[in-house]
């Protein structure tokens, strides 16, 4: 049964700024609420503060001002290890451990959490099936024996291993070739519906954002310009959105559209 009555806020940014020691501000006064089960896409060009926003959620960074609340509790009060194990994390470089097989890579968090070996194994096989890699063929391979697309699938499976309620994804498909990217995006779209997880997804690719988002947060120069539904974005009624769309199109057209 789905509770529709009142969407529950699970991640909240309250006046969050992040400044480097050098004094450069990467993020200023961010106020943003993320609801349970939604996919919030952080959209913006490089240097707009998307990745910083993401890393503030799993406390890889700590705000220099304001508070980030996860499940109602400020990240600074969370034990960072406990917090991160509740949050799946997928990055563009994937970061698979080259000395581990696919099976050990995916089973990492369950093993750290002390699951019994057979349960962890079963879970790994389940997940490999879920991301479309036959366990019999892939479980014993090493990352170097996989293609880019397969590695990224393993990365997604690894992030889901301990069934975390949250998933943070930082340009996860950005390094893939266009055909593989389109394929894995479609698959992820299907997966998204089945998983019912709260996902924060960073991308600079508008098409990808529109395809996967429940809501899009548009960022520029460390500031949040606004939060829109994909429909609002497509209609481009908002002047900020129109400006972004125009900028996006002028950069895309000469390259023949990526």
């Amino acid at each position, binding site marked *: 049964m789905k509770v529709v009555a009142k969407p529950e806020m699970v991640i909240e940014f309250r006046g969050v700024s992040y400044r480097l020691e050098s004094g450069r501000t990467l993020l200023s006064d961010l106020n943003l609420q993320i609801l349970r089960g939604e996919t919030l896409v952080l959209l913006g060009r490089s240097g707009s503060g998307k990745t910083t926003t993401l890393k503030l959620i*799993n406390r*890889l960074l700590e705000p220099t001002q304001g508070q980030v609340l996860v499940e109602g509790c400020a990240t600074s009060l969370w034990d960072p290890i406990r917090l991160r194990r509740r949050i799946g994390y997928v990055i563009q470089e994937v970061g698979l451990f*080259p000395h581990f097989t696919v099976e050990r890579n995916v089973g990492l968090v369950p093993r750290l959490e002390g699951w019994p070996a057979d349960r962890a194994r079963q879970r790994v096989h389940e997940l490999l099936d879920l991301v479309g890699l036959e366990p019999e063929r892939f479980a014993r391979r090493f990352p170097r024996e996989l293609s880019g697309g397969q590695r990224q699938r393993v990365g997604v499976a690894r992030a889901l291993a301990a069934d975390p309620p949250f998933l943070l994804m930082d340009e996860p498909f950005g390094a893939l070739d266009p055909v593989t990217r389109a394929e894995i995006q479609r698959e992820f779209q299907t997966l998204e519906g089945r998983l019912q997880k709260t996902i924060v997804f960073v991308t600079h690719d508008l098409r990808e954002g529109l395809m996967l988002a429940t809501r899009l947060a548009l960022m520029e120069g460390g500031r949040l310009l606004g939060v829109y539904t994909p429909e609002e974005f497509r209609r481009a009624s908002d002047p900020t959105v129109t400006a972004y769309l125009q900028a996006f199109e002028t950069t895309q057209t000469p390259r023949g559209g990526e």
Partner: protein
Amino acid sequence: MNILQFFWKNQAQICDLTLEHLWLVGISMLLAVSIGMPLGILLTRRPVFRRAILGGATIVQTIPSLALFGFLLPAPWLGERADRLAITALTLYALLPIVQNTYAGITGVDAGVREAARGMGMTDGELLMQVELPLAFGVILTGVRVATVITVGVATIAAAIGAGGLGEFIFRGLAMVDNRVILAGAIPAALMALLADFFLSRLERRFRYV
């Protein structure tokens, strides 16, 4: 009497001194690894010490080996026994490549791998033991190999302070102006260095990923 006959006649002593040499090198390397690796790890965790530790190890390395043995001679506990003294000096010599390679190996671990590990909630200890050290192991072994080869060579000088080893033949041969005696020390030492180099490089290759 040609060289082979000379070796044959003195085989017992060559064997003894080779074993003694091996012992000096073995103990020194064991100590150097068990001190150098933790120091290298410390540098990755507390970069403040980087200059002090790497600088210190570099300075030791620049002291001529004979002088280092001499410097340590008046030291209270160390100076009492020649082998103690020799092992200390050899350990100090072997330290730099091991510390340096441990540090370089760990800091050279792919940034994406490290970020993923931290992002998934590995503690620093888990990151070090399960990810950084295994991935850095090949580079650390290179340091151990370089240090071993250096130590086999420098250990011949330990004979000058009476610590034994293959250097005894070399110094004796120099005094007697007899090349056969020099070679009775030099050839086994060279073989030892080559063998150590060969086996450690083979081991290193097993730890190459990607």
